[in-house]
């Protein structure tokens, strides 16, 4: 073929000349040859494009020839970089444009075609008039592409394109025709949640997905329910749950429970209530047994209060022996699921977990207390806040009771905070919350206590019952109506807002409105926020009413409260909130613009919506008010929390701004969106800010850093240790200014939040936003103006635990594996060595706590050993080799946890550890969790944290329960000492006997 190689064509001139021939066959010949040489000779051909175009438009020319001409022109335009022209001619080429061809030309044009189609489709959908007709040829090409993807097995691409093109029919086809429908569906759900910005359309996609799920031969109810929850279709969820509950098989019931727990995790109170109300009642008249049962005090006394519902269940089933056994079973399950859906079960279990696993370090608080100057009230109350946050949800208030005298220095609003702090500590203590707070609550008309502590107590009640205020609402309303004191109104408003979060209760709204219209600054501010809390995410008409009043009033505080309240109402509304946002961000009043930033932040929370980000960045650099700018930057944190890795990049420039407010905002934005992630970039960005020249920037950076580092220990990032030492230095430093000192104190509180068993988490496991948590952080970020709002941060705490539950919703003894070095995720070591010179007092304290800890550890070890023996005996035959292989390392793990440091050095660290239900499993640890294959209990759904329903493979064997018993055994020393401590200072009203009891 040397000759052939030598005779390469040197020019397309001849062929181009042939195009001008009159005979059509010659033209055709020229065209078809030019097509094959276009890659080489397009510069020459480009001069003749007009001729070829005229051939394409020539009606007398054959259809095929015309398409050939179009294809040729398209290719030439492609080489010339005129993609629009190229595409329009490629469309003219019809079937000759081969989507499966593997060339740059085809790839480029296809992506162009799809882009074009997507933009046309979305434009058509948005303008909603049919005039924007899409070129059918373009549609045909995209459809051909989709079909090809499906045929080639590229289902993910197909679903992706279909979603973007808004072609639900094709989407359905792609899903149903894929080889692994479940995986494609999961991908689809993920894609629609994270990439579909248009809310309405996202709902359509989800609806379709749910439909497909339902059509599957074995429907995946769990996924269906998750999808339905995104759609807020409570009724369908209720139907599915009911079907599962009525099933004969216990597994189905377990699955229903699991679904319920996962729904609860998303914290959408209104939705959950709706589901609960939609579950139909059992068919026999249950009134006699159930109703007394649910509010029966004796049952609660029978067992630990946890089990009250279960106990009542057994009573009932024995009582109604004559009824249909199926209905009886359903009724029993129904009561359980109602307990779960109301959130009570999970709250109770969480409370027990936090109490039994509390590892807070009192020494840190003591150090803080001693280093803080007596006269400095800011640091004094900061210490109180830190204590509340550290013990959030653990019910351990030892510190408060140990330091009654010191506490008594708190006056006025500080007193308010002290009392409210109790609410944070006892968060979730639903049964006894009221009696705990009883000493401080306003006594009907008698007016004994200070209004500050009364107001604080009402606020505390709200914090205890946050998002589950069914029981306490009425009391709070009565308290609100029964007083004229601003401070009490303030507390009651906040409390009501928290308890009735998102319920949009008309009566409560009216009560609060009455308070607002008294035009008192203190009460009005709380009323504004409270209205927002009440109407979270309802996009209610009332927002305009609030806006009107904000324009009317003279008090800045009220305007600010209302601005935040209005922002809260549009939570998660995305585009639907645009009008209101526009109205607020254009307002004359900087405070309302500031509210507008919050509205943007909350309406688009967690969506990473580009439009919202752009708007915020614009305000961050252009608004004239420092407050608005600060908030605009801060709001970025809310929008980006679903993609935390983006935030440090986006705000990095802003964090170097000359304006300290912008720097502060950048710090908090990172803190909010990267909370609990320990993200490297986030820490790198915050580090320089913690030593900023401006005091409040330092404060913000310290708090943000603590939020990022929650539950990260020194082993996984050494900078955590550095940060802890930095905090200590600031707190102890004589010359530090108050602002950063306060920041450091709060930071050390957040860093060790909830007895170190909670993290800040704005997304549930299914990537659904947690309403309460987001709202909590949003109000928390208001502490700039009003310190008591710091307590809202407790709303965003979620326990990091794996709690396995059996059919009776009790916690059985159950072991599983964490395939990682224990030191990576263990609790930070308790501070033992006093660093200050005033160590004379400290040693006794150190000794007592460490001795207690040791005793507790020993007890735990014994218990574990026992448990191990029993489980070992149970499954000795089934254990096999795998179990034996693991045993030595497992023992090492035990030794690690219990033994003293010197031995630790001698032994190499094991690479895994055995955890016992319920266990602390921090976020980063989740991916290392494994279940034993030969275990007695098998999880219904492979989840790695949170509540996991377990299927019992040996239902007839007796079960060993761990959590319900554990408070009495393992924590008795701690509880006892607390009680003792309480007695020492029993003269004060602080101590109440209930507290020493396990919840």
């Amino acid at each position, binding site marked *: *073929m040397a*000759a*052939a190689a*030598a*005779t*390469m*064509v*040197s*020019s*397309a*001139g*001849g*062929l*181009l*000349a*042939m195009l*001008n*021939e*009159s*005979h059509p*066959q*010659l033209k055709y*010949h020229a065209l078809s*040859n030019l097509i094959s*040489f276009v890659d080489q000779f397009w510069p020459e051909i480009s001069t003749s494009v007009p001729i070829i175009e005229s051939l394409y438009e020539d009606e007398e020319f054959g259809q095929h020839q015309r398409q050939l001409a179009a294809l040729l022109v398209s290719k030439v335009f492609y080489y010339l970089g005129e993609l629009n022209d190229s595409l329009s001619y490629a469309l003219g080429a019809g079937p000759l444009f081969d989507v499966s061809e593997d060339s740059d030309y085809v790839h480029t044009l296809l992506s162009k075609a799809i882009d074009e189609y997507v933009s046309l489709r979305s434009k058509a959908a948005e303008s909603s008039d049919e005039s924007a007709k899409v070129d059918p040829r373009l549609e045909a090409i995209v459809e051909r592409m989709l079909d090809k993807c499906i045929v080639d097995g590229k289902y993910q691409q197909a679903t992706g394109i279909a979603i973007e093109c808004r072609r639900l029919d094709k989407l359905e086809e792609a899903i149903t025709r894929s080889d692994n429908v479940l995986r494609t569906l999961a991908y689809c759900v993920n894609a629609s949640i994270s990439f579909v910005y248009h809310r309405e359309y996202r709902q359509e996609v989800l609806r379709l997905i749910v439909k497909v799920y339902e059509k599957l031969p074995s429907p995946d109810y769990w996924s269906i329910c998750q999808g339905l929850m995104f759609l807020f279709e409570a009724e369908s969820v209720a139907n599915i749950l009911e079907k599962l509950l009525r099933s004969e098989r216990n597994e189905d019931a377990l699955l229903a429970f699991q679904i319920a727990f996962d729904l609860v995790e998303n914290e959408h109170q209104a939705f959950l209530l709706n589901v609960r109300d939609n579950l139909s009642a059992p068919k026999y008249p249950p009134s006699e047994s159930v109703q007394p049962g649910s509010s029966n005090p004796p049952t609660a006394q029978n067992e630990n209060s946890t089990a009250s519902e279960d106990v009542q269940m057994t009573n009932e089933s024995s009582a109604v022996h004559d009824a249909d056994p199926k209905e009886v079973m359903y009724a029993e399950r129904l009561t359980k699921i109602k307990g779960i859906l109301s959130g009570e079960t999970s709250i109770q279990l969480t409370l027990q977990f936090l109490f039994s696993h509390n590892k807070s370090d009192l020494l840190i608080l003591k150090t803080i207390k001693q280093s803080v100057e007596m006269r400095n009230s800011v640091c004094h109350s900061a210490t109180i806040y830190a204590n509340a946050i550290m013990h959030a949800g653990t019910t351990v208030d030892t510190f408060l009771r140990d330091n009654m005298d010191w506490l008594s220095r708190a006056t006025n609003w500080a007193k308010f905070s002290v009392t409210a702090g109790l609410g944070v500590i006892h968060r979730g203590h639903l049964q006894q919350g009221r009696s705990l707070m009883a000493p401080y609550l306003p006594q009907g008309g008698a007016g004994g206590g200070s209004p500050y502590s009364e107001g604080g107590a009402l606020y505390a009640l709200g914090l205890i019952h946050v998002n589950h205020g069914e029981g306490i609402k009425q009391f709070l309303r009565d308290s609100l109506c029964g007083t004229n004191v601003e401070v009490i109104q303030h507390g009651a408003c906040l409390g009501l807002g928290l308890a009735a979060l998102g319920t949009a209760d008309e009566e409560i709204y009216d009560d609060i409105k009455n308070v607002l219209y008294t035009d008192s600054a203190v009460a009005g501010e709380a009323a504004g926020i409270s209205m927002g809390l009440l109407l979270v995410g309802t996009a209610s008409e009332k927002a305009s009413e609030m806006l009107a009043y904000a324009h009317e009033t003279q008090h800045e505080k009220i305007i600010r409260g209302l601005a935040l309240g209005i922002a809260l109402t549009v939570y998660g509304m995305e585009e639907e909130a645009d009008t209101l946002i526009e109205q607020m961000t254009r307002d004359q009043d900087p405070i309302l613009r500031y509210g507008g930033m919050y509205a943007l932040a909350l309406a688009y929370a967690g969506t990473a919506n580009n439009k919202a980000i752009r708007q915020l960045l614009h305000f961050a650099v252009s608004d004239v008010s420092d407050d608005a700018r600060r908030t605009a930057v801060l709001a970025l944190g809310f929008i980006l929390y679903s993609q935390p890795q983006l935030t440090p990049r986006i705000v990095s420039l802003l964090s170097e701004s000359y304006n300290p407010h912008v720097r502060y905002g950048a710090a908090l934005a990172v803190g909010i969106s990267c909370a609990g992630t320990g993200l490297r970039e986030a820490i790198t960005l915050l580090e320089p800010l913690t030593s900023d020249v401006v005091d409040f920037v330092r404060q913000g950076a310290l708090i943000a850093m603590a939020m990022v580092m929650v539950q990260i220990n020194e082993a996984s990032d050494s900078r955590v240790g550095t940060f802890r030492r930095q905090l200590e230095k600031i707190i102890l430093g004589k010359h530090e200014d108050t602002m950063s000192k306060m920041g450091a104190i709060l930071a050390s509180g957040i860093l060790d939040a909830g007895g170190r068993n909670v993290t800040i988490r704005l997304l549930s496991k299914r990537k659904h936003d947690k309403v309460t948590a987001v709202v909590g952080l949003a109000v928390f970020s208001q502490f700039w103006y009003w310190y008591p709002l710091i307590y809202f941060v407790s709303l965003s705490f979620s326990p990091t635990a794996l709690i396995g539950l059996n059919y009776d919703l009790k916690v059985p003894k159950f072991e599983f594996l964490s395939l990682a070095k224990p030191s990576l995720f263990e609790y930070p070591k308790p501070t033992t060595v006093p660093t200050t010179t005033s160590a004379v007092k400290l040693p006794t304290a150190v000794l007592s706590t460490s001795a207690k800890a040791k005793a507790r550890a020993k007890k735990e070890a014994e218990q574990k050993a026992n448990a191990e023996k029993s489980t070992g005996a149970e499954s000795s035959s089934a254990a096999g080799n795998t179990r034996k292989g693991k045993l030595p390392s497992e023992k090492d793990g035990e030794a690690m946890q219990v033994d003293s440091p010197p031995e630790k050095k001698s032994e190499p660290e094991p690479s895994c550890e055995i955890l016992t239900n319920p266990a602390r499993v921090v976020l980063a640890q989740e991916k290392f969790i494994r279940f034993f294959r030969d275990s007695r209990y098998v999880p219904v759904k492979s989840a790695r944290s949170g509540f996991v329903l377990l299927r019992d493979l040996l239902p007839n064997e007796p079960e060993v329960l761990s959590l319900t018993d554990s408070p009495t055994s393992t924590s008795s020393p701690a509880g006892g000492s607390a009680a003792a401590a309480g007695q020492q200072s029993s003269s004060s009203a602080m101590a109440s006997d209930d507290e020493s009891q396990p919840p």
Partner: protein
Amino acid sequence: MDLKEVSQQFERFKAAFVKNDFDTCANLLSQLKVLLTKFRSLPPLFENTPNAVNELLLAREIYEHAVVLSVKIEDQDAFERDFFQLKPYYTDVGSRLPPSKQEYLILGLNLLRLLVQNRIAEFHTELELLSATALENPCIKHAVELEQSFMEGAYNRVLTARQTAPHETYVYFMDLLAKTVRDEIAGCSEKAYDYLSINDARQMLLFSSDQELLEYVKEEHPEWEVKNGSVIFQKAKESTPCKEIPSLQLINQTLSYARELERIV
């Protein structure tokens, strides 16, 4: 459908060609061209079929005849078309085929055509592609010399070259060239003179009689005015008003800018 059939058809074409039956020729030629597309050895595919050389030779001859035919029927477009289709036979496969006698003749014709159409750039591009020996060929040389005279403005030499044309087919283009030259002269006169007497104009434009001149003016340059025994070009000049550069204004502006800049700094 094979080589034989095509050659037979071509024979018929040649017969008609000799008889100067151009209509039949055009008809046959078109059919021939269609037939040629079936040969896969021809450009642009150049497949190495067994009959490749024969096919190429035949095709080359057909296109050579086509070019000559187009000159005879005085169709410049067809000439260009056919020439471009012929060209690959010379450039791309020239090494594989025995050289054609007609090659230089046709190349020369093409050069002449470019000259006539006043496409001087393309003319030189073509010239660059020719070898030194080709330049020696009388047909090519003739065209090159013509171009030189044309550029120099030695129009009389251009016109006398008609007599020395190397081939009868050249005559057609030489006639056309005369017209090109005349147009050129007319364009220059327009610029150079306000008016010319009819007598001078006739000499200048190389017409033999006043009648011819007047006809030419009427057809090609209706904007000229023939009055009082002279041709006036004034009208044409007026139609393209000269734009004066507002120099004074510009200078003033620039100076004021400079002054203000000085003040700012």
